[in-house]
């Protein structure tokens, strides 16, 4: 059951991912990205990671991508024109992919532990509580620092987007 | 004139009292109507406002006869010309020899008003020199297709009926 679901959603995800890079109209790309996020959330659900799945939908699909779509609509972006692919470009692309694959295989081969399925976490806590515990007990300081950084970034953005700087 | 906006105090700025006040008003109306009081709706086909129609109400245009049973229309076609949406079509004919009203000379052979076009403006009534066409109080004119919406002469006389008085000039002529 879990395996079939995995295959269904992972192939959907790859399909939509391909859509993001091959489709020409920006709205279609954005919608493909949203769909692939939702398939990713479904994958998380098959792993019983409800919290991450829901956060994935809430943040990525529900907030970030809506803003993307909003901006695509506002700027009225038209479909991209097809560029003619030149030979060196294709060669470069293939080389990049090859490099990535070689690296990946090296990393996987370096430690046999990576190939083994990791046993599921056995915990009596619900996953929300578990994430909260991890964040606020083991990683409290980094978490606070990230929070502060985000706050600074937000203030910076607000300042920059003001029309006139006094 | 300058209207000064009232400064709101902080309770008014919360808007909640005003919203609750508004809700109370609509609730009062809701309750009253639920009990059947103060509902102003008229249940149309059963209740009609015929009795409330004013004297000058402009309903469907009709043709009338005078007290001798004579068609008042003399086919002058003024109404056909004035009608803004060209709803009226008239075919005149000569009144045959031997008719007591032969002196009138003309009468309509065909008189059609296309009620799908009529805009109930009343110009035909106003222009008619013979006071032969009147807008009556019929307002519910329906038909299943366009041809049914054309009122022919017979129908127009049936709706119009007899109109007394007013024009006697044909009696004075010999």
């Amino acid at each position, binding site marked *: 059951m879990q395996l079939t679901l995995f295959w269904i959603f992972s192939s959907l995800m790859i399909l939509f991912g391909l859509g993001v890079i091959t489709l020409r109209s920006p*709205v279609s790309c954005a919608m493909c990205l949203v769909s692939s996020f939702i398939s990713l959330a479904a994958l998380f659900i098959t792993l019983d990671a409800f919290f991450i799945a829901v956060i994935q939908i809430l943040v990525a699909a529900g907030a970030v991508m*809506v803003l993307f779509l909003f901006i695509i609509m506002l700027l009225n972006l038209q479909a991209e024109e097809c560029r003619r692919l030149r030979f060196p470009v294709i060669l470069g692309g293939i080389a990049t992919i090859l490099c990535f694959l070689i690296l990946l295989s090296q990393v996987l081969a370096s430690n046999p532990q990576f190939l083994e399925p990791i046993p599921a976490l056995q915990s009596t806590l619900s996953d929300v509580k578990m994430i909260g515990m991890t964040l606020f007990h083991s990683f409290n300081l980094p978490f606070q620092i990230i929070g502060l950084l985000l706050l600074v970034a937000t203030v910076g953005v607000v300042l920059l987007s003001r029309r006139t700087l006094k | 004139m300058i209207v000064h906006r009232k400064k709101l105090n902080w309770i008014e700025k919360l808007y909640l009292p005003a919203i609750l006040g508004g809700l109370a*008003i609509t609730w009062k109306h809701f309750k009253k109507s*639920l009990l059947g009081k103060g509902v102003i709706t008229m249940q149309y086909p059963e209740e009609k406002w015929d009795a409330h129609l004013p004297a000058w109400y402009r309903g469907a245009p009709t043709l009338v006869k005078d007290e001798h049973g004579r068609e008042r229309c003399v086919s002058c076609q003024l109404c056909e010309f004035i009608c803004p949406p060209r709803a009226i079509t008239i075919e005149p004919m000569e009144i045959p020899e031997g008719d007591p009203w032969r002196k009138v000379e003309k009468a309509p052979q065909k008189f059609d008003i296309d009620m799908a076009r009529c805009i109930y403006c009343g110009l035909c009534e106003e222009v008619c020199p013979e006071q032969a066409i009147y807008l009556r109080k019929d307002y519910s004119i329906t038909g299943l297709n366009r041809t049914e919406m054309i009122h022919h002469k017979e129908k127009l006389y049936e709706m119009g009926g007899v109109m007394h008085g007013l024009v006697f000039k044909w009696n004075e002529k010999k």
Partner: protein
Amino acid sequence: MDASNFISQFFSPAAWTLLKSLGHLLMTPSGFFIWTTLLKSIILLAVILGLVSYTVYAERRVSALIQDRLGPNRVGWQGLLQPIADALKLLLKENFTPKSANYFYFRLASKLAMVPPVLVLGVLPFGSSLFGVPMTIASINVGALYVLAISSISVYGIVLAGWSSNSKYPFLGGIRSSSQMISYELSLALSLIPVFMIVGSLNLDEIVHYQVSHGWMIAPCWPQGMNFHTLLHPLVLWKSFSAGCSLSQFLLWIPLCISFLIFFISMFAETNRLPFDLPEAEQELIGGYHTEYSSMGFALFFLGEYTAMIAGASVITTLFLGGWSLPLIPDGSAGWWWGLINIAVFFTKIILLLFIFIWVRWTIPRFRFDQLMKLGWYFFFELAVANIFLAALLLAYVKK
């Protein structure tokens, strides 16, 4: 002769053994789970869709009564068949797509508008239990977040409709709607955090059970362990009252009240109901994002909007008004009739809330867009954040 023998004589032996093995399969734990879940989903969907069409009818009747009119009262007794007539009319109309519209997204958008509000219903506990089967389709441990997530993707239908219609009014409606929904989602989510902190769970079932034992979220105090027997003993009743009303209970009630207010008002913005219905402001935008739709395309938007309203009402009921619980009424473990009564209580609460939604719609005039944004960002957002701190402080004091 017992019942199974009686039934078996109508089947050939082979068919009977097949039926019996099918019956066994249905009674295995996973088989039982599958068919009860299917049955629950189908029945809930049917009930909700019926409720949707009658909410439309109620909207028309109540608005008429508020305005001293009568409203639709012709089709069937008191116009009760009006929704069916409306649906038939919409089905028979031409489903028109404008020439300049983007056909694929134009058609997709109307479906996307209908799906998310229905998905929300999947995690709501609409009853306690019936014959031992819990009356929640999926009781997941992040139920409340799931509701927020689904409502956050419900904006896609509107945005895509506005964009793909390729005409200015729908476009403006789509832009307004997306900015409005993003802004109010924030206060919607933040206003719920005090509830989660006090209950200590995101599971909607647990939130309801907390309210059954500790009292509804919007109640300042709650008698403990009240039932029909204690009603007869004033002394016991008084004791249960005094046990339930404490300073800590009262202190926690303050942030919950603020939460409720913010959530309730933001719900109006999230479902595009009248004080905040700018995406489809008829006077300025004709019909907003669904201007170009006709026939079933329009019907889906319309139904989606009302389903969202029902989903919103049921979320409010679940989180703040005690879900299916009512004082004195036990849950479904006390007998299946109590289970049915619990379901009835839940739907009654929803219907009352829907009435309030309609009542407010026909009372309050529409906001201006900048007022709406100011209210969302300058007032509700700040209030919700402050409320979280307040709740945390009070909780730290109370828990000591």
